[in-house]
């Protein structure tokens, strides 16, 4: 860089300069720099024409504010940007859950071994899921709560399947920051999250503490009286 001081002026040839140049002069010496400078000038809104070699810039029209070359620059840039986006897209998209993860999207589980009052934690899509066999007392308690007392109002019926009210199936992550609440505890016969002190009732609804929502009920259906499909 010390030997040749390159200033924009050295590359920004005016028509009068270019007339004096030999045909080989312009394109060889920093042609790409000229294009870059041209690009920046287009962006700035004031266009001056760079000329390579001979007096090819004959008409005055090409020195007006926009010309055919500006259009070509913008068109090339637009196609280039679309091309770049098309290349980047798969590079980002590969981060999404892959086919093997999605393949686990639905599981079947036999609930018959779970005794009344018992709760198990199973895995679905990498998430822990509570399956709880509720006692009649717990169901009664859940149904007795008036909706006005709830932070995230939902009836017990909305959180279970008709004819299978004894089964409560929910994603086991606290809706606050994702910890797993402890079952059969808390002030409402449901769950208690030890991380930040959220209490859930026997229908998994948030009753007290920082969690904003009820425990999430995943999509599921009973294929038979004892076989449940989650997802």
């Amino acid at each position: 860089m010390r030997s040749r001081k390159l200033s924009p002026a050295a590359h920004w040839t005016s028509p009068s300069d270019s007339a004096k140049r030999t045909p080989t002069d312009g394109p060889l010496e920093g042609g790409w720099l000229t294009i870059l400078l041209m690009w920046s000038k287009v962006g700035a809104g004031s266009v001056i024409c760079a000329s390579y070699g001979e007096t090819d810039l004959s008409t005055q029209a090409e020195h007006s504010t926009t010309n055919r070359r500006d259009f070509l620059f913008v068109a090339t840039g637009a196609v280039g940007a679309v091309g770049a986006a098309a290349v980047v897209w798969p590079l980002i998209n590969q981060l999404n859950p892959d086919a093997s993860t999605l393949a686990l999207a639905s599981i079947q589980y036999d609930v018959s071994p779970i005794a009344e009052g018992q709760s198990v934690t199973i895995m679905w899509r990498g998430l822990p899921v509570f399956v709880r066999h509720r006692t009649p007392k717990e169901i009664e308690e859940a149904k007795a709560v008036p909706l006005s007392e709830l932070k995230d109002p939902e009836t017990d019926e909305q959180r279970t399947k008709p004819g299978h009210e004894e089964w409560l199936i929910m994603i086991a992550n606290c809706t606050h920051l994702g910890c797993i609440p402890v079952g059969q505890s808390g002030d409402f016969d449901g769950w208690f999250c030890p991380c930040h002190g959220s209490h859930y009732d026997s229908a998994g609804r948030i009753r007290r503490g920082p969690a904003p929502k009820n425990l999430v009920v995943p999509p599921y259906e009973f294929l038979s009286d004892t076989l449940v499909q989650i997802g």
Partner: protein
Amino acid sequence: MSEHSTYVPGNAVEKWLDDRLPVVRFAKEHLMDFPTPKNLNYWWTFGAILVMCLGVQIVTGIILAMHYTPNVALAFDSVEHIRRNVSGGRVIQATHAVGASMFFVALYIHMFRGLFYGSYKAPREILWILGVVIFLLTTATAFMGYILPWGQMSFWGATVISNIFSAIPLVGDSIKQLVLGGFAVGNPTLNRFFSLHYLLPFIIAAVVALHIWALHVPGNNNPVGVEVKDSRDTVPFHPYYTMKDLFAMVVFMIPFAWFVFFAPDILGHPDNYIMANPQVTPAHIVPEWYLLPFYTILRAIDFNILFIDSKLGGVIAMGGAMLCLLIVPWLDTSKVRAGTFRPMFKWFYALFVINFIALMYLGAQEAAEPYTTLAKVCTAYYFLYFLVILPVLSRIETPKPLPTSISESVLGKAHA
């Protein structure tokens, strides 16, 4: 960059090289002859210490990657394998883990030095912003590194932090799945975090190069905050500051070595010596100590603000806390740089430092009274300091008279 070189190629080979790639000239200009204010104190040695820390992390990290396996079934055991079987692995792994903490010790001291001596003020705004970028990149790198041992804290820390993304309205869950590569933290997450944890230090190194470039344009700030006026205010970087930095590095290595050899696990968390289990949450999830102040700010917003729910509010507050650092050059408009000459500023600054330490302490406590209220008070002061106190002080404070030059401040002190 400015030319300060007195370099004259010594022989024909050096001359030949200098005409083609003047690296020797560059090194002499920027690593040896660079004119540096002669009054820099030991707070100014942390830049060099940080370069050393980055070097230590990269060297030990590359070695650890030779023995580590990024797979949920094998990761935890492979770290134990490094500690128990690999020759010298016990020390190398401890150096990397302790090194992360020491990195943040130096990083925080370096930033607090800048905040006290007004090193972010014109013409050093870009220098400061690049520093904040380095801080954010380092935070991300450290966070991802903490996931790799695949212990309980690794897993649940990642779960809690990735839930931050789900607070974003509408697209939150999609972004969370994109980041994790699944519906929960799992093998794809571990793999990509390992890849990025390997990549980011080199990006940090590149930003460090820009940071030093931006430093060498205006030159160093200094403890009196008066710009260099002539050559009597400066000394060459080498040997004056190379030796001072080297000495500081050696002193810094003493506590570093103590941790590595005598207490390699003391800065970690016992729960991380239990392998990750997606079905059991540790009773008390805490991030690493260096993330605690920002974690406290995240948790402090446990109430809804208008239409913003508490979860999103916390995320906005945490992001805002970092954003404050980026814009501080335009919040503090006082012409006087050094806090020494600002009679009111220095008390608010001292309180800010204490407040920051309090935020760190509170982040490690349970979310219960009185900690939750204290967290709100401390979070409020953090923002007040940047958004109200600094702009107001700039207008109402009468600074003490400044020395006319660095040279005068140094000699005046010597005569006193």
